[in-house]
């Protein structure tokens, strides 16, 4: 006889001896969780039921059980652990439209994955199909093909989504596999903390335990030698045990500055896939998918307008959609195209490709996290000198400003100072890859 059947038959007999209310109170959600070597484990929902059954019903239950299965000798009760877990979690409507939530609360503590990122809401197009195909191969056979899987692409194009979806899918397909998602920044700070507390061995063994390790934004390893060393160690251990490693970055391994050669070659050892910018059709498909997810409907005209005006960044597409959703909830009607244009004015400003003196100074100051005042000051402090030289270089290089003008702009300096700064950066750019990246990013900021 099956366990379920045995327990049903016990319950059937007990039902005859107790009042319906008693029966419902004490026997609801009870079951036999195991039956081995004459030992029966009965799982109960809480401590009250455990105490009660133990003290009041044990004899009766044992007697009935013995009649059914003669070799039963022992009866044990245990409180069911999963009694309260809700499997199908409903995401409730936010009471107030526009009220933002603490997203991190959704994150699964064991895997550090956010369940909202799945393949079902991942839009595939020409821009990411290679990455997607590799991801699918990885989730089918984690650790067996494409190891490591290195994916790179610009901001807001779905790298994190892809990584998290890989993690979530593997958890779903292989519940026993231990998956861990970690943003590289977090990994770096963990390493620093572990070094400080002399717990680096603990940290290593923590990461070596996983079957699938997903590291986001690996470019943060750049220049952090000690962390690279620890990561190299962890990487090798996992790799040798055929554990899947998935890495994302905003640029290919070759372009990550200050990365040790041995790590670079490891990263290039599996498959490298890039995510480029989505084309118009894909952007439209993404908008439609997101709108459906949010349960809203906008006319094709509006979606076309958004898709043709926001080109580089999927996150911005979603942002635009959110603005419209809020509008719709507040006003209980869909916005018309004119309203949409007004609402999205800030997101879709006509791309200004013009760079100005002010923009350059602002972007440089922001990039190096100093104030514009400090940038333009006469201070000789190291943290200001280099940004100042970079700014002078950009003014000369991009705007063709005259050296005397540049000098005057920076606290009335001599034109020779400006020339020196320009030459210094010009020369450094030839050998310092990090500086090349910095300048590239500052330029991106100027034009964004």
């Amino acid at each position, binding site marked *: 006889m099956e366990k379920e059947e045995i327990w049903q038959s016990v319950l059937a007999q007990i039902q005859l001896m107790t009042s319906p*209310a008693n029966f419902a*109170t004490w026997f609801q959600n009870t079951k036999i969780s195991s039956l081995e070597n004459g030992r029966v484990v009965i799982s109960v929902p809480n401590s009250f039921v455990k105490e009660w059954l133990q003290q009041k019903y044990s004899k009766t239950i044992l007697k009935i059980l013995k009649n059914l299965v003669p070799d039963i000798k022992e009866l044990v009760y245990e*409180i069911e652990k999963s009694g309260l877990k809700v499997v199908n979690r409903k*995401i409730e409507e936010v009471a107030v439209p*526009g009220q933002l*939530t603490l997203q991190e609360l959704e994150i699964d503590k064991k895997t550090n994955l956010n369940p909202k990122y799945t393949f079902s809401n991942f839009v595939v197009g020409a821009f990411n199909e290679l990455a997607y195909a590799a991801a699918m191969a990885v989730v089918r056979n984690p650790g067996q093909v494409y190891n490591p899987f290195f994916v790179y692409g610009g901001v807001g194009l779905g790298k994190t989504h892809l990584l998290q979806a890989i993690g979530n899918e593997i958890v779903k397909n292989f519940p026993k596999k231990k998956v861990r998602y970690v943003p590289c920044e977090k990994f770096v700070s963990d390493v620093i903390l572990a070094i400080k507390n002399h717990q680096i061995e603990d940290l290593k063994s923590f990461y070596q335990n996983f079957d699938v390790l997903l590291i986001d934004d690996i470019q943060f390893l750049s220049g952090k030698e000690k962390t690279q060393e620890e990561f190299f160690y962890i990487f090798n251990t996992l790799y040798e045990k055929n554990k899947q490693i998935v890495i994302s970055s905003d640029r290919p391994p070759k372009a990550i500055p200050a990365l040790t050669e041995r790590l670079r070659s490891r990263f290039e050892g599996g498959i490298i896939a890039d995510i480029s910018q989505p084309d118009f059709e894909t952007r439209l498909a993404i908008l439609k998918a997101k709108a459906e997810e949010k349960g809203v409907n906008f006319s094709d005209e509006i979606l076309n307008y958004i898709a043709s005006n926001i080109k580089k960044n999927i996150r911005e597409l979603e942002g635009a959609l959110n603005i419209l959703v809020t509008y719709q909830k507040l006003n209980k009607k869909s916005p018309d195209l004119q309203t949409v244009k007004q609402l999205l004015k800030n997101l879709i400003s006509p791309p200004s490709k013009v760079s100005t003196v002010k923009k350059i100074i602002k972007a440089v100051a922001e990039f190096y996290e100093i104030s514009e005042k400090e940038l333009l000051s006469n201070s000789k402090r190291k943290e200001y000198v280099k940004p100042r030289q970079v700014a002078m270089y950009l003014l000369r290089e991009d705007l063709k400003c005259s050296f005397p003008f540049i000098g005057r702009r920076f606290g009335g300096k001599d034109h020779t100072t400006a020339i020196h700064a320009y030459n210094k950066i010009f020369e450094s750019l030839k050998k310092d890859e990090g500086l090349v990246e910095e300048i590239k990013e500052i330029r991106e900021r100027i034009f964004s």
Partner: protein
Amino acid sequence: MKVKILKENLLKGLDVVTRVSLKRVSLPILSTCLIETEKNFLKISATNLESGIVWWGLAKIEEEGKTCVEAKFFSNVISNLKEETLTLQTENHLLKIEDKNVSLKIKGVSPEEFPIIPQKDSLERISVNSEKLCESLRKIIGIPSPSLGRPEISGILFSFERDILRLVATDSFRLAEKKIRLSTPLSKAYSLILPQSAAKEIIGIFGKEESEINIYLTPNQIFVESLARELPHPKILFTSKLIEGEYPNYQEIIPKKFKTKVRLGREEFLSQIKTASLFSGKINEIKLNIKEGEVEILSQNPDYGEFKSKIFSKTEGEGISISFNYKFLIEGISSFEEREFDFLFTDPEGPAILKPSEDYFYILMPIKAS
């Protein structure tokens, strides 16, 4: 059973245990309390099968015994009696009180039917000051929202680590953490999620007088016990089931870097927010504009008009413009005792944190500016 007990004492006990006894339930025994003798004490217990309370009161025990009577009813009867000392007697399940002036008999039920309240095993004892615990719980008790469909955040996280107890509550829009220092460091770290209702009971039962209370933990239950003032014997033992599941890793939420910081006076800010709230629209939005040296509070409503006020205060960092649900702001600030607090911002769409002291913070998510 024949027991002599002070009426005031008995009433106190009944007050406590009737907190958990239920009215009209499918299982009538759950609306009763179990009255029994135990050495020199009268012991009264009640339970609703999620939590249970046991109370002990010194009494002159002349004859041992026990019975079960309807708890609320019994408590009403006792509170109306004039006598200072009561003599309780049982005859079968009948509970009798006979004095010079009164004679009453209350119908009882068999005490054998009464549920068994789980017993605390001998585990590490955690000692906490009752006032500190209850005050801290009061600050955050209103935050969890049971309708979220996520049991693990419908309760309050108790996280014990060495000599610190952290109490955490969230409803996914805001999250508060209160730290309590324990007088004796613990040998291990423990963490549990207490149902909100049980936390309310703890406040109700132990919040009235200041004393050291003991907490004991088992994998499925929490026990909170206060001792009698006069002698080393438990006075009240409260137990509750725990919520299964893992509390989210809330430390990740706490912003580490800030763009803007303002120091505000609690009373002044609160009263301005309250006035502003009268003008706010149906999404409860009020807007804060932080500029150098001042905080501007704005709200408007097409039906009533608009409101604008200014508070001069110490500010650090960049200016920011950010909107909040005023209800969440008021609830958070009302839980502060300190006269001033720090208000720190990360981004118009990122978490903001209100911090009256090192031991307490309240994180709040803004409303997307419309």
